[in-house]
């Protein structure tokens, strides 16, 4: 069964004022359990608004959201329970920390769930380890940490609740290339270890392409496509035409195809590109490439 399902989901900001803007338009979506979904779209494509529907932070203007098959806006559903199920980490999560120690800040989420002390302690320590925060840092004030540590601490605060679905909005925003790499690896690791559903919002195809099992492309509030990476990147031209960049390696292959070389277009990692080129050369010899 789909863990997240939306039905004709529409959201309009500032309805009835001159600032009116439809951010999410008529979205029908089904996300299966255990997927690692990359959500891609331009700034203002509605991806951030869309994900805020998944834990009931935003009430749809029209349409429905189902989490685990329950309509989250029906009367007898407690939104807090939904929020424990769907953990949402915002952009720059380091701006939401407030407790006087890192430990307490991570424990804030589990505490709200009403868990007992022993369980909270266990979860805080486990999650801190998972995100790479050493035990001695737990006693420090979160405001003394470095930017990267702060962010990891804030993320641990959401992960410690063990949500069925983890949604991360632009986890790599404002990080250097190495930090990016770390964050993405961490998400992959979390996904592999917990087998939970993970949604990763990004505007960089390159980041998402390597890990995601499914890619959701948003454009102007609508779903352009939702499919496996090979199927999405096979439509590289279409994606480029709405102004999203595809991975460089995909672009090279689509340029090759434009020049009349009969090579597959669904290439999005360098390793796979190497394999494809080798296969092509074995099949056609060098001649095919030199003609181009």
């Amino acid at each position, binding site marked *: 069964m789909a863990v997240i399902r939306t039905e004709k989901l529409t959201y309009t900001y*500032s309805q*009835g*004022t*001159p600032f009116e803007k439809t951010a999410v338009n008529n979205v029908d979506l089904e996300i299966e359990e255990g997927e690692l979904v990359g959500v891609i779209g331009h700034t203002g494509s509605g991806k951030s608004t869309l994900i*805020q529907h998944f*834990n009931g*932070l935003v009430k749809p203007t029209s349409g429905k959201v189902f989490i685990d098959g329950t309509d989250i806006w029906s009367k007898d559903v407690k939104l*807090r329970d939904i*929020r*424990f199920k769907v*953990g*949402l*980490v*915002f952009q720059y*999560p380091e*701006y*939401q*920390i*407030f407790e006087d120690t890192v430990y307490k800040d991570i424990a*804030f*989420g589990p505490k*709200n*769930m009403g868990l007992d002390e022993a369980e909270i302690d266990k979860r805080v320590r486990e999650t801190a380890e998972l995100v790479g925060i050493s035990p001695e840092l737990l006693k420090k004030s979160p*405001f003394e940490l470095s930017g990267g540590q702060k962010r990891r601490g804030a993320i641990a*605060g*959401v992960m410690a*609740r063990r949500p069925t679905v983890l949604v991360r909005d632009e986890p790599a925003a404002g990080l250097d290339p190495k930090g990016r790499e770390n964050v993405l690896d961490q998400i992959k690791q979390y996904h592999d270890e917990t087998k939970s559903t993970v949604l990763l919002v990004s505007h960089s195809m390159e980041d998402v392409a390597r890990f995601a099992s499914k890619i959701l492309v948003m454009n102007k509030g609508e779903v352009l496509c939702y499919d496996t990476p090979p199927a999405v990147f096979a439509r590289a031209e279409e994606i480029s035409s709405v102004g999203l960049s595809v991975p460089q390696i995909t672009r090279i292959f689509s340029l090759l195809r434009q020049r009349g070389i009969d090579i597959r277009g669904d290439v999005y990692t360098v390793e796979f590109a190497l394999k494809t080129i080798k296969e092509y050369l074995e099949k056609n010899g060098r001649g095919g490439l030199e003609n181009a």
Partner: protein
Amino acid sequence: MLKDITIGQYFPMDSAVHRLDARFKIVITAIFIVMIFSADSFPALILSLVFFVIAFLASKLSPKLIIKSMKPIIPIIIFTSVLNIFFIDGVTVFHIWKIRITDNGLITSGYMIIRLIALICGSSLLTYTTSPIVLTDAIEQMMKPLSKLHFPVHELAMMMTIALRFIPTLIEETDKIMSAQKARGADMDSGTLVERAKALVPIIIPLFVSSFRRAEELALAMECRCYNGGEGRTKLKTLVSGGADYAALCLSLLFLGGVMIIDMGKIIFR
């Protein structure tokens, strides 16, 4: 939820009222307030309301906005009118137990309600149609003579501009932090008063931290641009007044005159 606050918000549009010189708009708003509070009879009050309706129609704003701006002051209106009804002496209209309601009480509170509503409507019209930056600019120019007395007019205007400029930013920030804490399972909508007050801590602390950060960044950015106060500073957009501004001012004075004449008539013919 916080985004629905409309007090002090500016709605950019193109209308006769939007185009008026901000200095004139401030003066006209002041004249309107004088009109409302000096009107001493219902015909005079209606005349000043006619003036508001004209201004409102010329502004092309939707009536919904005006109604929305009333929402936060409804408690104040109810409170003052109830006080007036009960505590003003006059001829008793009806009597229940110890509570006596008099004709004067009813009339005074009626006036009060209309005046308060008109006051809010009038000042909302000013802020809806004038961008905060232009508004403070106008205030700075109007207060300029005070700088002769070594009053820090420019600094005051700059502080106002910055404060106004950051209201939407802070609202947005608060909204974001609230969402983030709700996503972490914070419960802000239920519980006792003490529990609710405690639930605000996770919002207020990050808000303070980010305000200090912003203030520091802004100060640094201003210094990098060699900002050193108002001395010798020129304006990119200077306020210009034209015929339309004087016409609007004359119209408002005409209405004020009308209100005064009606009231004088009342006194003379009584």
